[in-house]
């Protein structure tokens, strides 16, 4: 789970990153410096501050700030922590306006193949119509689409992923909702809650009833 805000480049972040770090280091003490990538501007690559459990962290560059959790602890706690950190950011640096708010939710659903194919329809309800003679039982696939929804757009990616160490496979549902209008630090709470609701709604609509029942514990 990641929530990110973007803003016009603020150079004071580059020079006074330590001031922000001083305010968060108790909870996020681990400092991860971005690697210098050929062709990329180093100021645009975020520094990371992570907690000791390597679960939660902050990413900060001169034009973006994000908070993430690898194991999501629920939207209420996540939003509360994000807003608290955003306030620290706003108190430390002068940010007049925001360009973009992004809310990215990645869910990996472990699966076992059925007759060598991915049992996609057991988990998600995406209609894929193939031509006559072509099976709709997929051995692999990758789907990305961007759709307009209320107040913003959402990028949806569906594809299987495989772990190199254990060969376990999962369907990665990757939702990235973003909005660009009427954003500032004072209305951030309302916008973040809206972003969460939009993504949650898409997740609820995309999963099948069978999988929803499984998530609720209706399983053997």
């Amino acid at each position, binding site marked *: 789970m990641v929530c990110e805000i973007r803003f016009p480049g603020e150079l004071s972040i580059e020079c006074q990153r330590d001031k922000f770090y001083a305010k968060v280091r108790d909870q996020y003490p681990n400092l991860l410096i971005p690697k210098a990538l050929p062709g990329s501007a180093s100021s645009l690559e975020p520094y990371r501050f992570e907690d000791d459990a390597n679960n939660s962290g902050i990413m900060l560059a001169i034009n973006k700030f994000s908070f993430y959790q690898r194991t999501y602890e629920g939207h209420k706690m996540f939003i509360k922590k994000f807003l608290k950190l955003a306030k620290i950011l706003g108190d430390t640096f002068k940010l007049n306006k925001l360009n973009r708010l992004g809310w990215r939710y990645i869910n990996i659903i472990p699966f076992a193949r059925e007759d060598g194919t991915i049992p996609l329809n057991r988990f998600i309800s995406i209609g894929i119509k193939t031509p006559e003679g072509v099976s709709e039982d997929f051995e692999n696939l990758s789907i990305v689409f961007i759709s307009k929804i209320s107040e913003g757009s959402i990028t949806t990616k569906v594809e299987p992923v495989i772990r190199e160490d254990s060969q376990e496979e999962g369907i990665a549902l990757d939702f990235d909702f973003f909005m660009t209008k009427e954003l500032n630090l004072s209305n951030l709470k309302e916008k973040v809650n809206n972003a969460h609701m939009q993504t949650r709604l898409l997740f609820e609509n995309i999963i099948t009833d069978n999988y929803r029942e499984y998530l609720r514990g209706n399983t*053997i």
Partner: protein
Amino acid sequence: MTLSQISDGYASVIERQRFVPNHYRKNEIDVSDISGFDKTSWVKRSTQFKTPVWKFSYKNKTILASKPISIEIKKGEAHFFAENENLGIYSIGESYNCAIKAFCEELIYFYNHYKNLPWTRVTGEAKRLKKLYEELFLKNK
């Protein structure tokens, strides 16, 4: 499907995503999504997880479950374990896929075993399992 075939499938998808015909370029829209996250490293390393399964095939036999069967997969030092305590199935395999395959084989075996066992010959745990197997599963014709 072998692990090699599965791996080839992933490589094919990546190769196709990269390919662009001559004289064309990808009409990539600047989606500006939240970048910097690799999905495979995103998930915390774990040697244990559960997956729901509805269809079980082994050789020419297939049975379907009316409810998802949760298979717990554990990675040991040299083997993988696929288990469901409720059904009394504990399988082992050299790989993730082998463990699942072994689980399917055992489940089909126990399905046939309990289906053919008369009610007069079961008590206690065996009675519970017979009821479970008969109510949950259906042979796929």
